[in-house]
């Protein structure tokens, strides 16, 4: 997982997003242990409170669970839960931006659809 700490998004959100990506790509499989708060904060040189805040977002959603004295683990069913969540966000995060840019460039909806179909066949 790679963070872009200069980016606009607050770092704790980026930590949560990065772990989500790791779960979706299989880097952090379901029921496996994820690195500790200390490991995250040392690795990215961020305050442990920031790392904790990011991870707690995922704990609140039930994607990560804590085992007292052992560590933090990916929940069973986290992948499908995340896929569902990201599917819901897909329009806002990707499609609306695509349409904004297409409008600026005078690209029609037909042309976008053709491009998407071409992309899927590649």
């Amino acid at each position: 997982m790679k963070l872009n700490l200069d980016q606009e998004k607050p770092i704790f959100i980026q930590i949560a997003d990065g772990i989500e990506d790791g779960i979706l790509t299989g880097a952090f499989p379901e029921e496996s242990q994820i690195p500790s708060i200390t490991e995250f904060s040392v690795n990215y040189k961020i305050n442990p409170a920031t790392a904790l805040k990011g991870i707690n977002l995922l704990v609140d959603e039930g994607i990560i669970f804590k085992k007292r004295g052992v560590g933090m683990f990916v929940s069973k069913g986290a992948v499908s839960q995340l896929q569902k969540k990201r599917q819901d966000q897909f329009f806002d995060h990707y499609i609306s931006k695509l349409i904004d840019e297409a409008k600026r460039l005078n690209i029609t909806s037909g042309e976008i659809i053709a491009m998407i179909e071409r992309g899927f066949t590649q």
Partner: protein
Amino acid sequence: MSRIEVTDISKTFKDTNALTHVNLHFEENTIYGLLGRNGAGKTTLLNIINNRLFPDSGTVTLDGDTLTENTAALSRCFLTNENNLYPESMKVKNAFKWSQVFYPDFDIDYAGKLSKLFELPQKKKIKSLSTGYQSIFKNIVALSVNVPFVFLDEPVLGLDAYHRELFYKVLIEKYAERPFTAVISTHLIEEAANIIEQVIVIKSGQIICSKSLEELLASGYCVSGPAAQTDSYIQTKNVIGTESLGGLKTAYILGIPDPDMPAGLEISRMDLQKLFIRLTDMPESHS
């Protein structure tokens, strides 16, 4: 919870007002960034807190007890700074031993481990170390003393990129394992920005800002776009600075962005470095 309280500290050197009515407090187990431009008063403030300088007026207390000439309270604080307090002919190894005499919780094994990590030669005299290694030596002592309040004055002075990164990693590791209050004074903000929780900005001997990093970053935003649109938008705003590049203009604004931004203007988050430059760049009358 332990707490250091700085109340109404003023200090003058001849005709220079080094500090003027400084009020601050430091909470337990928090990482502070003490930010200020060269000569702003950072080192003077740290020296006064740690009883190395006397203020003209004002008090510094730890849990209600004065820190001035109070050995018991002072043994819970540690300050590194440019003036080495060790005899110049002393070797690194002996300096570690002496630190243990003054600070009973000084972890000599940990200091040795860090020396290996930073490749600090323990048999060398402190005087003969390069600027970078003098900083490393002082940082190692600071990370090994195990007191609740550690003040690091310009800890990355003279350190190369590799050692700066290593220093911040070791600091976080130590902080995560055994929390303490670290007050880091620096003007190299970018590298420390993700570690700091509380920001104190000092300008010409006065505290112009003391709040959490989150609050500080949320207190302002940047707007950029074509100069004419930017200018008309910022007319009614509290602008702390602008930058122009051709027909493009960026304004740094204090406050919360309007929910409906005029077309053509883009909002972005203020980063600490930008905010710091703007805050410390403002004319006296505006601050």
